[in-house]
C-alpha cells in the first residue's frame, strides 16, 4: 500500500522530543526542513527505511542516556537502531573501568580506565592494548573543561555546553570530529554522536561516555 506516496516527517520544534504514533513510520525523517535541500528526486522516489542523507557525511550513533548507570552492559546503536557496539564495565567501583566491543566480531575496540589516585577525574584510553589517549578534567571556570591528549601528541578539544549535553569534539587544527547532542537522536532518552567521515568512531563514542560519567559524578556530589 502507498507505493506512490513517500511520507516525510520533519522532527523540529516541540515535536523534536515527542514520540510518533506507533503505527506511523515515516519513509524519511529529517531534523530540520532545510535538510531536505540535499535530497534528490530518486531519494524521494525510492522507498524503504530511508535515513537522513547526512549519514553520507556523518555516521550517527545513538546512546541511551545514563545507560551505564542502569546496567553493567549496554549497546550503542546505529542510525537504523541496530546495535553495533557493546559496552561492558564496572562503574563507580574503585574507579570506572569499561570496555567497548564490536557487536559482530566480539573484538575489543576501546578500553577506558579511570585513574583513581587523581584529584580531578582522569581517564586513560587504550586501543589494542596500547595507550591511546588520556583525558582529564581541568580546573576551569571558563573555556575548556576537558583536555584530551593522544599518545601521538594530538590534542582534542571538547567545546560546547556539557551540562546541557550539546557539545563538539575537534582536533588541534580545528577540524570538527564529532558532535554530541540530545536533539540529534531519534530515540527517546537518548543522545546521538555524529562522527565525521574518517574519524575513529569508537574512540569518540568512548569520549562521550566518559564525559557523561564525569558529569554524573559531579551531579552525585552536588
Amino acid at each position, binding site marked *: 500500500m502507498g507505493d506512490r506516496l513517500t511520507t*516525510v516527517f520533519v522532527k523540529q520544534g516541540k515535536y523534536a522530543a515527542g514520540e510518533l504514533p506507533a503505527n506511523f513510520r515515516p519513509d524519511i525523517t529529517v531534523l530540520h526542513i*532545510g535538510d531536505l535541500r540535499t535530497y534528490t528526486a530518486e531519494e524521494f522516489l525510492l522507498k524503504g527505511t530511508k535515513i537522513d542523507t547526512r549519514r553520507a557525511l556523518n555516521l550517527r550513533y545513538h546512546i541511551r542516556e545514563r545507560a551505564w548507570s542502569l546496567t553493567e552492559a549496554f549497546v550503542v546503536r546505529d542510525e537504523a537502531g541496530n546495535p553495533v557496539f557493546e559496552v561492558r564495565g564496572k562503574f563507580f567501583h574503585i574507579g570506572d573501568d569499561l570496555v567497548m566491543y564490536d557487536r559482530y566480531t566480539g573484538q575489543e575496540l576501546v578500553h577506558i580506565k579511570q585513574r583513581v589516585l587523581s584529584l580531578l577525574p582522569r581517564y586513560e584510553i587504550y586501543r589494542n592494548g596500547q595507550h591511546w589517549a588520556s583525558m582529564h578534567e581541568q580546573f576551569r571556570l571558563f573555556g575548556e573543561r576537558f583536555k584530551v591528549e593522544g599518545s601521538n601528541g594530538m590534542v582534542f578539544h571538547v567545546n560546547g555546553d556539557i551540562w546541557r549535553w550539546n557539545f563538539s569534539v575537534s582536533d588541534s587544527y580545528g577540524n570538527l570530529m564529532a558532535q554530541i547532542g540530545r536533539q540529534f537522536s531519534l530515540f527517546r532518552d537518548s543522545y546521538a554522536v555524529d562522527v565525521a567521515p574518517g574519524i575513529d568512531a569508537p574512540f569518540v563514542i568512548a569520549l562521550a561516555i566518559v564525559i557523561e560519567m564525569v558529569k554524573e559524578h559531579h551531579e552525585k556530589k552536588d
Partner: protein
Amino acid sequence: MPGLVFFIDVDNTLIDNDGVKEDLDAHLQVELGPSLAARFWELYEKVREEEGVVDIPVALKRLREQPSLTELDEQTFLHVESIFDNYPFYRAVYPHVIETLEHLCTIGLTVIVSDGDRVFQAEKIVNSDLAEIVEGRVLLHVHKQQDLDEMMRLYPADHYAMISRRFLLTAKLLWVIA
C-alpha cells in the same frame, strides 16, 4: 503528468507556528490583560474543536460578542484584530525554507497544503512569501476526504511526497493513493 508532486504542510513544518502563538499571546497579554487573553485562547480552542480547524476570525468575533464594553472597548478590539492582520509571518519561517522549496521545485512540483481559516491562514502563507515561492500552488482547508481527492485531481502525479506532521492526514492520503 509530473513525476513527483510535493504536498507540504505549513504549521510547524515551514513556519514555527508554536513560536507565532507564543508571540501572539505576549501581544494579547499586553493588549487585553491576562484574563481576556486566556478567554481568547479558550475560544480559539473551542472553535477549533467545533470546526476541526483553527479559525481566528470566528474566535475574534466571539471574543467581541462576549465581554461587556467596559471589559473590551472598541479601540482595544481593533488593536487586537490588527495584531492578527499585521503579524510579520516572514520572521517565523524556519531557516533554509526558501532554499528548500526552491530545491524541491527543481525536482518536482511543490504544493502547499494547509488547514485553517481562509483569512488568517492565507495571510500567513502570503505574508511569509511562501505562496510566491511555490508559484501560488496553495490549497487551504485540507482535512477531509474530499479535499484529498481534490488534491489528487488538481495535481495528478506518478508519485507523491507528503511533508507533514499531521499523521491522520498522511494516513488518509496513503489510503486514497493506494
